[in-house]
């Protein structure tokens, strides 16, 4: 059996394959739901309603999509330049930590919105700097970044744990390990009344559009792609590899750090070790579902968020164990990986 790249990708295939993937994932999830003794069709309806069927559902889906868009972008940007950043989770946490460290007080007396902007920048910067370490190791020593970025995730979460049990611990949190909150007037405003949905969504979508432009139109976008595909040939062509990858890392880590900043400033208000239910890792899911396309990341993030929020609500409603939500999302990822594969490759007997 030989894997062969399709030179043309039939439009029908491109459009249909994700649909088939989701259908297969839902069918498999359906089997599991049936195991729990719940009616499958009702379950699917409940997923849809749970994801979009009410104001609460829709805002919650969008809320969950918000950090996913940003981490998805972070991963997509890096992967496109063949910088295997598995560390979005750590970058997110470090971004969050930076925001809290700088934003729990306002010694300079800055106006709220200005402080908010500075905090967003600081969060992005923290995430960006975190990715520079693994990149430097790769450029300097040829250390593969998959493992280093993965490991740094755990280091950073432990650092957060240390900080929230130590210097940043909220004295008003009754000993609970979480940080002091970001000043109220530096937090992001809600954009829908009586919901958790906040301005971060606008920031995330804006970032996606910006990244799209950078990748498709900017000199830097082309150089990054070239550097990723073949560092040697790119260097021969005069692309400054190190500098380009540094920029990619700054952008990627920055987006992940921004995700953390936005999550703290828009949603939670403080940092703790349970800030992220794996947003960084799901960012990889999102980026892959989006085929590394920035605008696709928005849709993929919405999809992943909807699947999660919808299945979670379904589980609650039909008495199916709530873990079904994660199972469904994971199934979607796996089937979507296959679908993407078969839309650009075919199998042939050798």
């Amino acid at each position, binding site marked *: 059996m030989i894997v*062969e790249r399709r*030179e043309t990708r039939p439009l029908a295939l491109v459009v249909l394959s994700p649909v088939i993937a989701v259908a297969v994932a839902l069918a498999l999830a359906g089997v599991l739901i049936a195991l729990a003794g719940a009616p499958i069709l009702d379950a699917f309806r409940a997923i849809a309603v749970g994801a979009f069927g009410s104001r609460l559902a829709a805002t919650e889906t969008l809320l969950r999509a918000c950090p996913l868009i940003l981490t998805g972008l972070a991963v997509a940007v890096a992967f496109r330049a063949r910088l295997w950043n598995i560390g979005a989770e750590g970058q997110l946490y470090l971004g969050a930590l930076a925001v809290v460290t700088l934003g729990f007080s306002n010694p300079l007396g800055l106006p709220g919105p200005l402080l908010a902007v500075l905090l967003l920048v600081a969060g992005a910067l923290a995430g960006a700097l975190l990715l520079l370490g693994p990149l430097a190791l790769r450029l300097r020593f040829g250390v593969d970044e998959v493992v280093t970025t993965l490991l740094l995730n755990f280091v950073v979460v432990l650092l957060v744990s240390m900080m929230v049990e130590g210097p940043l611990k909220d004295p008003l949190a009754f000993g609970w390990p979480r940080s002091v909150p970001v000043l109220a007037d530096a937090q992001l405003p809600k954009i829908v009344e009586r919901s958790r949905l906040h301005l971060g969504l606008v920031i995330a979508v804006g970032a996606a559009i910006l990244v799209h432009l950078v990748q498709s*139109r*900017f*000199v*830097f*976008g*082309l*150089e990054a*792609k*070239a550097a990723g*595909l*073949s560092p*040697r*040939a*790119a*260097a*021969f*062509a*005069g*692309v*400054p590899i190190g500098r380009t990858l540094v920029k990619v890392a700054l952008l990627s880590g920055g987006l992940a750090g921004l995700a953390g900043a936005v999550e703290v400033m828009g949603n939670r208000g403080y940092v703790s070790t349970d800030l992220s239910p794996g947003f960084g890792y799901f960012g990889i899911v999102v980026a892959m579902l989006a085929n590394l396309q920035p605008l696709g990341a928005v849709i993929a993030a919405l999809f992943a968020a909807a699947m999660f929020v919808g299945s979670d609500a379904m589980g609650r409603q039909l008495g199916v164990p709530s873990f079904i939500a994660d199972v469904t999302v994971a199934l979607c990822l796996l089937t979507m990986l296959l679908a993407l594969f078969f839309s650009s490759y075919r199998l042939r*007997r*050798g």
Partner: protein
Amino acid sequence: MTSRTAPALEMTGIAKRFGAFTALDGVDLVLARGEIVALLGENGAGKTTLMNVLFGHYSADEGEVRVFGEPLASGRPRAAIRAGVGMVHQHFTLAPNLTVIENVVAGTAKLSGLSLSLPAARARLRELGTRFGLAVDPDARVGDLSVGEAQRVEILKSLFRDARILVLDEPTAVLTPAEGETLFATLRLMAKEGLSVIFISHKLGEVLTGADRVVVLRGGRMVGMRASAETSREELAELMVGRRVERPERHERPVGAPVLVARDLTLRRGGRTLLDGANFTLNAGEILGLIGVSGNGQKPLADILFGLEAPSAGTVEILGQTPARPSPRDMVRRGLGRVPEDRHAEGAIGDLTLWENAVLERLREPRFSGRFLVRRGAARAFAAHLVQRFDIRGAAPDKRIRLLSGGNMQKLILGRNLDGDPPVLVCAQPTRGLDEGAIAGVHARLLEARERGAGILLISEDLDEVLRLADRAVAIHAGRLSATVPTAGLDARRLGLMMAGEDLGRAAA
């Protein structure tokens, strides 16, 4: 039924299709015992594919393979190995982190076995080594071997498994002329012992001297078969390409002012001196041939000239100016055209489109970008123009360049450099791995540029090429340059001596 008289190998009616493309179309090939056959053909003619079918990397869509009279199961390298077929691949299939002996014995024992029995294997490897003149240290790490030694390991791998048919895909492409000669001596020895050999080559010279018989493929069909004693270069070239190929001739023309001057260029890395005080002057309207066996410092020299590497000492002067810290783009902007040694690794990025590859070197020039944005329209137009002007086949601006054959990829690389009529060109091995037709094309382009007044540094391992194209020649050996001599009246023997560093003393005068 193994017949005592059956030929070593019979391939009949082999057809192989890749998607809609037919790579092999009813090829017949017979190999007698103890015979050496050369397989010749243009790039993409299907030589490697035919051999991959034989070795079981591919299974043929049609046709039959018989080895010593026995039909061979298709698509299974294991079956081929068992039947006595050994293959030395164009790109070595070795694991650099393992030792020689490990590379050799892997796959020879049953996977359920409990022991590797290395001592016995070592002894056998030594014995084979002395018998065929292929000595290597069994316990050396393969990554530490030279290219020639690595190739010996490749051949030993086959011999170790009692190969009776040995296939070598472009075995001399990576060897020095001397190593090449040793290899052919070994092949002769093996043929005497009853082994049958097929080798693929683009070098007509070694085909004529090294093989008993030559088989020519074109477009997936066999178009000719000659005893090498009864044919000529010209005939073979014509068979390959399907028409007469004339390599273009150089005509005398006056020489202009210096365009590229190297002064005492030295490069040291990790305590080793790769390039040792190289001096040369390249004038407008001439081709200076830099001849040398690969690994003697031409790559570092080219990298310095390309702006990829900063010399440890010395300067490069281009068109009268001496850039302080040259970079690739700076050198290109100053009027340097560059053809890298390895077109796949350096010259082009397979998964980028033609237009992206066409402009990447000049991406920061105002013609192709603004402050931030790429001028995509202009870039596509440029690529389309190159495709047209340089007759790049099977190309379109938005097509990934991976899909071009080596020759056409080379045309794009040359084209993007030649289009702006640069006054200086540095070309490293511009025809390596190309077939006769493609070589003639590249040579014609270079001579045109010279006619126009460009100065060209031609870095090559091919004596013929240098003698034909270059006005003057300089040899590089162990990082040192000889003096420059005119090619008029120079013969291959003298050049060979220069390459071997024999002639350096006299040249320094």
